[in-house]
């Protein structure tokens, strides 16, 4: 048993063990066999070539899938306001905010077609904004008065708690879109646009809107007080806050196909104020493929990595041909020599 006190005990870590004779096993003597890879030129060139062979096809397939996607973007915030005072126009409840936009389809779009609204310069990641909600309140009716974190949109002017409370719900996006293709009205399916886990877990089926948008300031859209929050999918989509100031959120789906050269007419109710802070609004129609939406980054990244690997492999082949190098011999290491130089 160890009974000794170390001189530098105050500055060191005290070790106390049963000091028996050392066991002579491979583990305690640190002689376990280990794989020690040997980087010969063949192995290195083969590895880089293999990376290139694997990555470039993946990248090309990804780019092709992304090219299949048809995406139409229509920025409407500038042209849908005719008055000089844009903020006054939006905030005036008496003005007619309807706006008609026409989009010509360049390529056939196979259903279902996703309909998104896109906002720019809108900071849903601001700390004050992102904290201003009460998840307990959204989940269950019995917690309807849990409004501590919802300032400044926690209680209505009468003092009653707001359901749903907080800045996120209060600033719900409230532009609406109506679609016609070749003068025939097309229905937009607004079911199942939110995550199923949100609809079944995070938003309770017994929570109904109360005192919502009843204050002096109205920030966004109204809610149907007869529907529980778990069925208000516009709200659920909006409350999944975006990480960046430029984001898209799903508005609905058009289930039918749209042919090339068809003319899409959209009637937009331009209600949401992005003019105060210099943001923009856009309508996005997009098809999908197995890779998702239109996204070239993955494909280009894979192709770039594969190309770089091929170039490195070629460089090593050239180096090995021009200046070959013999493999090292472990017997030259100083501790492997039979007659070391330092012993005289």
């Amino acid at each position, binding site marked *: 048993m160890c009974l*000794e006190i*170390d*001189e*530098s*005990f105050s*500055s*060191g*870590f*005290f*070790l106390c*063990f049963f*000091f*028996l*004779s*050392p*066991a*002579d096993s491979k583990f*305690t*003597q*640190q002689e376990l066999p280990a794989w020690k890879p040997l980087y010969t030129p063949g192995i290195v060139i083969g590895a880089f070539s293999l990376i290139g062979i694997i990555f470039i096809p993946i990248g090309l397939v990804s780019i092709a899938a992304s090219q299949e996607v048809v995406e139409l973007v229509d920025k409407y915030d500038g042209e849908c306001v005719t008055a000089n005072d844009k903020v006054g126009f939006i905030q005036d409840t008496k003005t007619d905010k309807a706006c008609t936009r026409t989009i010509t389809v360049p390529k056939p779009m196979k259903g279902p077609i996703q309909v998104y609204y896109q906002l720019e310069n*809108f*900071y849903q990641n*601001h*700390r*004050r*904004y992102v904290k201003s909600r009460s998840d307990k309140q959204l989940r269950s009716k019995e917690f309807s008065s849990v409004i501590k974190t919802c*300032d*400044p*949109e926690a209680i209505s002017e009468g003092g009653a708690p707001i359901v749903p409370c907080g*800045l996120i719900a*209060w*600033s719900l996006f409230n532009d609406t879109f109506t679609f016609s293709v070749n003068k025939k009205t097309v229905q937009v399916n607004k079911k199942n646009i939110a995550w199923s886990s949100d609809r079944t877990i995070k938003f309770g089926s017994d929570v109904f809107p109360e005192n919502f948008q009843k204050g002096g300031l109205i*920030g966004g859209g109204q809610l149907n007080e007869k529907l529980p929050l778990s069925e208000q999918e516009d709200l659920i989509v909006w409350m999944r806050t975006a990480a960046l100031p430029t984001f898209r959120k799903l508005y609905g789906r058009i289930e039918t196909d749209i042919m090339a050269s068809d003319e899409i007419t959209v009637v937009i109710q331009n209600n949401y*104020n992005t003019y*105060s*802070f*210099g943001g923009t609004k856009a309508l996005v129609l997009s098809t999908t493929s197995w890779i998702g939406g239109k996204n070239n980054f993955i494909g280009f990244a894979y192709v770039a990595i594969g190309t770089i690997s091929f170039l490195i492999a070629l460089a090593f082949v050239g180096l090995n041909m021009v200046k070959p190098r013999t493999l090292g011999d472990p017997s030259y290491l100083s501790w492997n020599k039979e007659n*070391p130089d*330092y*012993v005289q």
Partner: protein
Amino acid sequence: IEIEEQYPLSPQQILLRDSKLRNTEYVYGVVIFTGHDTKVMQNAMKAPSKRSKIERKMDRIIYLLLSALVLISVIGSVFFGITTRDDLQDGRPKRWYLRPDDSTIYFKPTKAAISAILHFFTAMMLYGNFIPISLYISIEIVKLLQALFINQDIHMYHEETDTPAHARTSNLNEELGQVDTILTDKTGTLTCNSMEFIKCSIAGTAYGRGITEVERAMAKRKGSPLIADMASNTQGSQAAIKGFNFTDERVMNGNWVSQPHSGVIQMFLRLLAVCHTCIPEVDEESGTISYEAESPDEAAFVVAARELGFTFYQRTQTGVFLHELDPSSGKQVDRSYKLLHVLEFNSARKRMSVIVRNEEGKIFLFSKGADSVMFERLSSSDCAYREVTQDHINEYADAGLRTLVLAYRQLDEAEYANFDRKFTAAKNSVSADRDEMIEEAADLLERKLILLGATAVEFGHALRQFSVRSTGVGVSARRDARDLHLPPPSQSHSHSQTTST
């Protein structure tokens, strides 16, 4: 007129720190030179905290990350303050969804500076994960496991003493193997601080058949089998005695009585038994005698005298007591010698002398020292074996042994009385030239000596304990403390007779 008796004070009466006082009933105590100005107190420092290279590098990385964290927080706070102030322009909110018109101090546009400062602390806490504070704990766990492996290493286990490696702290595990050179003072360090009496020259005759390590190495290099066989034969014939490796049937077991110069041999052995400052310790159970000596060669001399018939068994303040082998009767006889003066060894004198009075009232001066100073003090009358002794000394030095010359003289009463008066006066003086006066008085007596012979002492076999080959460590041994410009140790004789190892 009554004169008060005076006693001299010399370094011999000083009890240094941690000294042990033995065989003394009472002392008068004087406290001199204590306090914080003493060298030992000034050298008492707190041990520095040991930090390894990995820990110092880790500290640098942590400081770098902390600086980056502060920089990021400062830049973020500045931009936060600017945008918060812009949120309200002429009372009209810009980012209306943040309600800047109804805001707490953390986001208040009218007090953007305070909001920015508070945001700095918020950012520091939010980005605190940037600092890998658990890295220290991980490194500590790794070092603990390394220490366990060090304790279990079979290559660092000493089987004879059943001693495994012992990592006392895990701070400096990765600093192992940093030693590449050992610089050492030769005295005692590499030789285990032990010496063995192996040869001597008495009256011009060399005694001692032992083989030294140097001679054995040279014989092995030349390939001579004779000396090796001789060594193996003689070494197995007797039990080992600490400090005594002497074998010669001509003088052992009392056989020196029948040698031609038995009188010189008797005086030689008596000098070995008397001229020293050892203190005997008798084991009460077994009755054996061991010696406490200031230097190991003094102990070797007294052990040699004991093995050859002159047993030193007691010392008092005024005398030494021996069991002597009487050549006329062939029996052990008790003899006592009154110790009159001791002239101590130091590096300047290179010799030591004692003045004793035997039971018959005769006064003798016994002296031993380096040959360079002893030969010039011998009597100028012709000595038959002076040159032969010098040759023996040279041979011993070539064999790697340390040598001393032994000589004596008989004094008459008048000469001793004159010396005693001068020596005592010099010792009692407190002037600046006290040391010169003492040396001058001693020098009057230490001349016209009669040569007895020389001794040869071998260092212990400690060099074999260094596994220099397997560690790659170079060993550079200096000859003496003076080469290192260090003062000789105050409590031991530093014999300056040096030989190469």
